[in-house]
C-alpha cells in the first residue's frame, strides 16, 4: 500500500501551500514560450517582492550583488538562471529546457536617474538578441533597483522619458506591478520584430524615521548624502 505522503495528491498539496514551490508544476509543464514567460514573470515578481521585504539588507549592494539574489531565487525555483555573457554583458539569463529551450534576457540597473535606465534599455534592445517567441515577438526585462523614495513618481518619470529614447515606443500598464511597472513595445532594430520589455521597479528604499532610525548614524549619513 502506497504511503499517502508519497502520493501526487499529498505532494501537490504541499507544493501549493508554499509560495516558493507553488508554480513547480507550471514550470515543469511549460510547452510554449508564452507559458514560459507567464510563469517566469510570476516568479520574477516573487523574487523582487522577497528583496523588498528586507531592503535594509540590500542597501549597500552593487548591481551585480542584488542581481545575484534574483539568480539564486530563480535557480532554487528550478530555472537555469545565471549572470553570464550572451552577445555581451547581459545581467540576467533565465532558461528552461523542455521539448525546446526557452530563454529570457533581463538587464538590471541601479535607478539613480532616468539616464541609468536609458543605458540599460538601450543595451537590452540593441546589444543583446532575445529569443523569438511563439507569438512572433521578442521579450525582455529591465529591472530597476530603486533606493530613492517615491517609487511611483520615479517610475512615472522613466515611463514618460522612454518614448524620447526610442521613437514609436508604445507604453502599456502592467497588471503585475501596478504603478511601479509597465510594458514597452517597439520595433527591434536588428530583426524588425516587436520587442516587448517588462519594466520592473524593485523598491529598495529604506529610511526609518522612528526614534531609533532618526538617531542611527548610518541613516543620518544617508539622509545627508
Amino acid at each position: 500500500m502506497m504511503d499517502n505522503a508519497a502520493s501526487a495528491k499529498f505532494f501537490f498539496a504541499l507544493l501549493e501551500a508554499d509560495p516558493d514551490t507553488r508554480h513547480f508544476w507550471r514550470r515543469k509543464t511549460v510547452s510554449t514560450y508564452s507559458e514560459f514567460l507567464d510563469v517566469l514573470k510570476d516568479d520574477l515578481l516573487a523574487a523582487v517582492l522577497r528583496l523588498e521585504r528586507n531592503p535594509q539588507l540590500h542597501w549597500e549592494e552593487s548591481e551585480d550583488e542584488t542581481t545575484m539574489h534574483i539568480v539564486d531565487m530563480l535557480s532554487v525555483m528550478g530555472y537555469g538562471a545565471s549572470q553570464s555573457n550572451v552577445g555581451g554583458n547581459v545581467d540576467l539569463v533565465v532558461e528552461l529546457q523542455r521539448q525546446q529551450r526557452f530563454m529570457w534576457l533581463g538587464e538590471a540597473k541601479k535607478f539613480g536617474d532616468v539616464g541609468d535606465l536609458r543605458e540599460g534599455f538601450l543595451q537590452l534592445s540593441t546589444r543583446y538578441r532575445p529569443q523569438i517567441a511563439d507569438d512572433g515577438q521578442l521579450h525582455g526585462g529591465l529591472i530597476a533597483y530603486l533606493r530613492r523614495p517615491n517609487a511611483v513618481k520615479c517610475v512615472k518619470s522613466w515611463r514618460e522619458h522612454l518614448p524620447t529614447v526610442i521613437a514609436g515606443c508604445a507604453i502599456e500598464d502592467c497588471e503585475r506591478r501596478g504603478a511601479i511597472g509597465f510594458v514597452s513595445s517597439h520595433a527591434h532594430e536588428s530583426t524588425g520584430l516587436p520587442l516587448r520589455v517588462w519594466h520592473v521597479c524593485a523598491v529598495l528604499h529604506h529610511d526609518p524615521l522612528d526614534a531609533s532610525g532618526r538617531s542611527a548614524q548610518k541613516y543620518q549619513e544617508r539622509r545627508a548624502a
Partner: protein
Amino acid sequence: MSQLDSLLQQLRRVYGDGPEAVVASNLLTFLARFDGTRHVTVPLVRRLCPGAEAGQMDHAIARVLQYLSGDGPALLKLSFEYIDADDVPHTLEDDEARAAIDHRINPLSGEVDEHVRARLLAYFDPQTDRIRLLTSEPRPAQ
C-alpha cells in the same frame, strides 16, 4: 569550491539557516552511496533527516526536490506511477501524467477519476551519473 558545495551554498543564500541545505546534503550523500535508488519520495527523504519523520520538514523537502530537479543541478527527474487496485505500479509517460494531474484522467481507463491523484506515486528518479560526478569531486577541508 566543489560543485556540491556551490549547490549547497546557493540553498543557504536563499534559505539562510533553514534545513534545506542539510536536507539536500543528506539526500545526495544517500544517493551517492546507494546508487541503485530509483524512487525518491517525500517519505524517503523524511527518513534521511533526523526530526523530519512526522512531516515537520516537508516544505524544506519539497523545496530541495524542486531545486535538485531544476534545470541548474538536473540531478533528479520528476516521474509518476499509477498504482492500480491490485497495488501494481504502472509507469506514466509525460502526457499521461499531465492528463492525470491537470484533468483527473485515469491513465488506465481514460475516464475522469476524481481520486486519481491519490493513486499516483510522485517520485524523483536520480540521475546517477551526474550525482556520482557531483559527490566524487574532492571538497576542500571543512
